[in-house]
């Protein structure tokens, strides 16, 4: 058996070791991707709303704080 094949065979435990590692990657990457996608969707919605809001509140002084947030 070649060295590489031996490595992938994991001493006969391949069916358990590789799924474990694979599942770990799937869950960790999945959570990360879900988080990033949700963040992007929300950022886009916020940008849209703020563009509308800027038009609607343009004539009111103080409306600019809406984009920078309240400073303490």
């Amino acid at each position, binding site marked *: 058996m070649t060295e590489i094949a031996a490595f992938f065979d994991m001493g006969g435990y391949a069916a358990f070791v590789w799924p474990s590692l694979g599942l770990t990657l799937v869950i960790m990457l999945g959570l990360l991707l879900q988080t990033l996608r949700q963040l992007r969707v929300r950022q886009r919605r916020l940008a849209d*709303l*703020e563009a509308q*809001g800027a038009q609607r*509140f343009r004539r*009111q002084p*103080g*409306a600019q*704080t*809406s984009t*920078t*947030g*309240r400073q303490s």
Partner: protein
Amino acid sequence: MALFEARNLDCRRGGRDVFAGLSFSLPAGGALLLTGANGTGKSSLLRLLAGLLRPVGGAILWDGQPIDAEPGDHAARLHYLGHLDAVKPVLSAKENLRFWAALRGRAASIEPALDHFALSALADIPGRLLSAGQHRRLALARLLASPAELWLLDEPSVGLDHASVGKLAEAIAKHRAGGGRVVVATHMALDMPGAEPLSLDALAPPPLPEMVW
């Protein structure tokens, strides 16, 4: 004589600013009449004053002490009447009233309280058989059944007939004459001579999309 006052109250409900910068002071015998359109926070203010709700800014003081310093003491000196009547359907009118009066532990006067709101004849009728107006009268009878210095009344006259509204005004007048205070939110005319109006319309914060947590 102790002063009941609110300083610079800010109220936020469900992520929305309801009112900001509300102040008042109420001396013994005084009455405060809350007015304002729907959603301006009359009910929220009463819940704040009762201590059910916490303000995000400002303070509510009794005799200079914040009310949340001793919540038990504050609860003991107030009657709060919200939208709900707290009437148990399987208990009779008298049993309902007796429980709440006994819980407050002071000299209870069940009979006169029932009598004032013309409930004596219904004393043994279970709550489920009483009408909405009778429920309301039973809730109002709580005010008289055990003494408390401060009455917080949220739309007390809802569902009441003309005669009962008069009885309510009478009870409030007597309460104030004895040095009691009352804060009332109402849309209907309620006869309260010398009551100080407090409009919440002017206190609504501008609907600016400010950064909110």
